[in-house]
């Protein structure tokens, strides 16, 4: 179970997909880093990831961590966004049999989990099918 401070630290990434980009070798990092692992450049610019992508692979979680027990079974996928960055996230609003590798998805803001009956509500991104 996370604490409010850990959740709070991740808000820029979880809510707004804030990443950073190396202005020398043009690599984008998510979550943001202090220096570029390729060229060790410390001058990294703030950037925002795109909100559309496609499913690279996925699995169905049937034995979940404790805070996700109410949600199981659920789908988790690796999603490649249009800017090339890959993220892990739940794929929702879609029957398991309809999830396909290569399927277009977009990001939606959802509740990720609740810290018990009295703790904080943790929000962030999930992925839903994108029919365009």
């Amino acid at each position, binding site marked *: 179970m996370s604490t409010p401070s850990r959740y709070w630290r991740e*808000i820029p990434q979880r*809510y*707004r997909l804030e990443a950073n980009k190396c202005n020398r070798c043009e690599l984008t990092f998510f979550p943001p880093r202090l220096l570029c692992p390729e060229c060790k450049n410390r001058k990294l610019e703030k950037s925002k990831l795109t909100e559309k992508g496609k499913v690279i692979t996925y699995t169905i979680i049937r034995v979940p961590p404790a805070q996700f*027990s*109410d*949600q199981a079974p659920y789908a988790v996928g690796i999603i490649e966004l249009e800017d090339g960055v890959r993220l892990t996230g739940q794929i*929702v*609003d879609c029957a398991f049999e309809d999830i396909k590798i290569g399927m277009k998805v977009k990001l*939606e*803001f*959802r*509740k*990720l989990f609740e810290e018990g009956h009295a703790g904080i*509500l943790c*929000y962030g991104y*999930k992925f839903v099918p994108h*029919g365009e």
Partner: protein
Amino acid sequence: MEGIIGYGAYIPRNRIKVEEIAKVWGTDAPSYKRGLMLEEKSVPSPDQDTITMSVEASKNALKRAKIDPADIGAVYIGSESHPYAVKPSGTVVAEALGATPEAHTADFEFACKAGTESMFVALNLVKAGVIKFGMGVGADTSQGAPGDALEYSAAAGAAAFIFGRDKIVAKIVDTYAYMTDTPDFWRREYQYYPQHGGRFTGEPAYFKHVTGAARGIMQNNDMKPEDFDYVIFHQPNGKFPLRVGKMLGFKKEQIEPGWLVNKLGNTYSGSSPLGLAATLDIAKPGDMVLIVSYGSGAGSDAFIFKVTDHIEEVRNLAPLTRDLLDKNKNYLEYGEYAKFRRKIRKAD
């Protein structure tokens, strides 16, 4: 000149039909469908609430407004189902949009009127010159007690409006508020479901306040029902907005574009704002639009908007409300619905 510069809607994809609810409680579905003019209603997924739907509707409004979210000076969320008892919804929404830290935020509550309250305040702060851009959102994941008449209508949805002075989609002509202390519907602290006064929610509550606000704003602006192209009333069921429209002298054609309730249900604070979003989706430059909300307790806010040429440029930059309502639906059985709405819970 002030008015709406961007608007956005969000409706969850789950639906439950009136027949499915009636089957469980042994009631007569055809008489509910006829009496309330309801066919089905939207249901939020377990990971959706007022905050998540407000974020999605606001992002759609931002797509149309095309402004830097950091320039939004006020983020107001109107709902009777704020997820926290203590902790604002608005901070999460503003943070998700990128409107923090230089913004004022508040959560409004006034039964089904909270959405237009948030719009009323955001708009008037822009008019007063206090802020450059202000956003008002109406959102709810409303609950009806199992077996209560409200269970057939209590639905989920959100609409967001960004107000500003340039590139206006709909110019504000006037605002008006009408309210009295009328206990027709309430929910006490620690109670999960609201209670209501049955038929008392009609004449002395909904009809008195909606007609009071509509007549008041029309009188102040020397306007008659025939001067409007469209009108949106709060939609607790299908029948009330059509009946109040007839009482005031409006025609069905003026009401229908924003009348979503038969397929959507009552989205409470999102109800008349979603009707306004659907109406702006089809309105033409120069059209006059009247919106009258209603919140139990009780009161109505009224707004007159004049649609501008700019509507054509922004309309298709975000999903249309009728598309969200009619496409990509997922029908639930009562058991799934009961789980989604936490009417039943898994053992710890």
